[in-house]
């Protein structure tokens, strides 16, 4: 059984990966190991995924680094860590797009510290927050509320944080994604806070086919910061593991979700 281990910075990323694996790839329900770690197997028993929520930005890479050797011994060979650019970096200084090159350079150095060719290490950086991925998956709005149609949203851009038009904007241009998402839902009186019910409502409504539409390129880039709208995760998974996948699901199926 081949293993892939995810190390994420918080509950939003944890739920997102969990739903991605269950919705798009055929994984069973998770087996919780602790409050922050769960394991789930593919329905054909060929793959095992482990998701670990570090619950702190600065612990994500630490946890990957500290547990990688032991996990490798039991069959894990692909490791992904996911954090966002807005998080708690050193000195409490939020990072911006201009810092991404420096983050990539730091990641390249870290790679050199562990140059095991049998490993695939990926560092995914959400710019600015994971909510960017949700904003850009625009088909989910109507599943959240049928009134949230494209014409309706575009007619109310002035009421959206940062005047972001989610249908045409560049993901990198969304400065405060969580606030923007909140303001989009607020157009129909819905609330989006960082509690379990709100984030899971969104996560269950997402179309996970959206997250692998772009090619990663031919270069085998390991442990390098990536910026995108969340599509790279799906692409990495596709390239790493030939998992059995569900066929495209209807919005109703997606809305129902697995949990």
């Amino acid at each position, binding site marked *: 059984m081949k293993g892939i281990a995810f190390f994420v910075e918080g509950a939003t990323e944890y739920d997102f990966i969990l739903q991605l694996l269950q919705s798009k790839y055929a994984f069973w329900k998770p087996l919780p190991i602790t409050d922050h770690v769960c394991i789930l197997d593919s329905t054909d028993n060929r793959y095992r995924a482990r998701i670990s929520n570090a619950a702190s*930005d*600065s*612990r*994500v*890479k*630490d946890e990957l*680094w500290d547990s990688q050797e032991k996990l490798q011994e039991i069959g894990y060979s692909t490791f992904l*860590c996911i*954090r966002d650019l807005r998080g708690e*970096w*050193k*000195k409490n200084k939020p*990072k911006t797009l201009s*810092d991404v090159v*420096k*983050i990539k*350079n*730091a*990641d390249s*150095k*870290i790679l050199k*510290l562990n140059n095991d060719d049998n490993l695939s290490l990926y*560092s995914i950086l959400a710019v600015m927050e994971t909510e960017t991925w949700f904003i850009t998956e625009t088909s989910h709005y109507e599943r959240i509320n049928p009134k949230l149609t494209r014409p309706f949203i575009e007619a109310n851009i002035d009421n959206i944080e940062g005047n972001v038009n989610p249908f045409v904007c560049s993901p990198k241009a969304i400065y405060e994604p969580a606030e923007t998402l909140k303001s989009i839902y607020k157009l129909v009186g819905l609330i989006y806070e960082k509690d379990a019910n709100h984030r899971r409502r969104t996560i269950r409504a997402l179309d996970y086919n959206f997250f692998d539409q772009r090619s990663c390129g031919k270069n085998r880039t390991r442990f390098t910061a990536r910026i995108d709208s969340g599509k790279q995760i799906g692409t990495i998974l596709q390239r790493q593991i030939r998992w059995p996948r569900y066929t495209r699901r209807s919005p109703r199926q997606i809305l129902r979700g697995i949990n």
Partner: protein
Amino acid sequence: MKLKSIYYTQEHYGREWKICSDGSQPIELQAINLIVGKNASGKSGVVRVIRTLADLLCGETTPSKLLYSTASFDVTFEDRDKIYIYRLSFHKGSVVEEKLSIDGNLLIERTNGSGKILYSNVGKMIDFATGDSTLAVTREDTLQHPYLAPLQNWGKWLNHFSFSTKMGQNIAIKEGSRELQNNETISVKESDRVADMFSLGCAIDENFIGRIIDDAKAINYNISGLSIENIHHPVLNVKVIAVNEDRLAGYTDQTEMSSGMFRAFSLLIQMEYAILRKTATCILIDDIGEGLDYDRSKQLIALVKQKAEAHDIQLIMTTNDENIMNGIDIDYWQIVVREDGRTVFYNRQNTKELFDEFEYAGFSNSKFFKLNMFKEDN
């Protein structure tokens, strides 16, 4: 007054040991310093050297009394924009060279037992001859050598704690002591006399206890009172520090406290005492936080740092504890590594690029040390 830089060498039974920055330069110290290193890397050695320097400057010891009696110090101090540069070299307990300049003006120049020293009132450098092991810098003459007082006071009032010791838990109040009877200041170097310092602090300032309680609460010890009580013992009649803990009836005397709790209290009492006496200039804390859990050690170090900054106290701490490393920004770090008979320091001043890079690595601070990311060739 703050110790800005130090370069130290010693020779002992033919073995040389140096404290230096990479490239044999003096190490630069800041207002807040966390010396990080593995066991046997020289962390405690650095603290011992600074303590020795303090004892030498205030005349509490002489080169001939030192275990390492062949050594040399090159140090720089800063006091209200004045720069003091002091060099002291001694061989087998005898001074070989001693030199002091302030803002570039030479005030002491001495070779072996004789030299010249500035007499301020006369305005001249005048010859002197002294014992081989007596330092010129320890002369006390407010008329002729007033410029030496800041150095001597720095040495006199340096606080030195070793967090891995009892820190006075086994020492009761010395009720008949001279200091207590006459309200005299206890030397903060006598760090096992914390009970006496507490007693004096209470006698001098009615708010002393309240501040210690506030500090204790800041590091999550839920106490409602602090007092001096008789030890819980059927025969002994001695007075010690006692705390009233929430949800516990009666008081817990210092001998009953957990060692970690007492050490935290001891540090807070002694810091507050030094602040109260207006004597705090530099505090050395070896193995800070040892024996405390993660949250409390983090809270303690934050509190100590905050107090040091508020009262302009230089703080020099050592640790090899990951929790402590993660609790303090790497800007304050001095990483020590033992290399070829030298204890070499890596800090933001001499390794700026790697310190800057680490800001983007996304690791917690302890990984910077553990993975040797402060070295180019790691």
